[in-house]
């Protein structure tokens, strides 16, 4: 009875799901259902809540988000490089250095912009 590792992963997740989903159903069934304006109000330190909760917050950190998407890709490529590092000839190892050096200027710009709070 040898399973593929992904099948084992799915069996594990499925068993965990079987364990916790009934809990959620149980909690849902056992809980009182009365609606009440005060109880249903979002928590705001005991104050009456004011205005919309879903406002436009924190545009300031948008550069970090873009850098994350970019570096996600870069990191994945770097892992293939790391795997192949000793198998590659020495000159080709440094191709990835070129790849990284190209990114220095844009990332510097991104860090500079993220420091300037007045443009966000």
């Amino acid at each position, binding site marked *: 009875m040898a399973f593929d590792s992904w099948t084992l992963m799915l069996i594990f997740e499925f068993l965990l799901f079987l364990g916790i989903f009934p809990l959620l159903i149980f909690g849902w069934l056992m809980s009182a259902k009365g609606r009440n304006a005060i109880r249903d109000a979002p928590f705001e330190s005991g104050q009456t809540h004011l205005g919309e909760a879903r406002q436009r917050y924190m545009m300031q950190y948008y550069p970090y988000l*873009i850098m994350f*998407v*970019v570096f*996600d*890709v870069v990191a*994945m*490529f770097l892992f*293939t490089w790391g795997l192949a590092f000793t198998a590659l000839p020495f000159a080709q190892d440094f191709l990835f250095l070129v790849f990284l050096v190209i990114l220095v200027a844009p990332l510097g710009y991104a860090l500079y912009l993220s420091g300037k709070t007045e443009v966000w």
Partner: protein
Amino acid sequence: MEPLSSYLIVSSALLGIGIYGLVSKRNAIRLLFSVELIVNAANINFVAFARYSNPPILSGWDIVFYSVAAAAMEATVGLALILVAFRLNGTIDVRRLNRLRG
């Protein structure tokens, strides 16, 4: 193991859904969804063809690496464009974005 054609049918269906979205939707973010779906349909084809060759060709996987990376970059710039369009026009309905005024 399934025949190659089953993967091709799935990817064609995904392509069809993507084109349907591009034709009938007018929300810029949904258009972006459609583009992503089409890119993924192409990726499935690349991987399936690479896998079903004998011996399997490594280039298929390499190309999908670059394809996924390029699609991520495309989504990043596309979302920034949508953000600017919303800021300038107050809507992301592409029918309203028909004036070329910065």
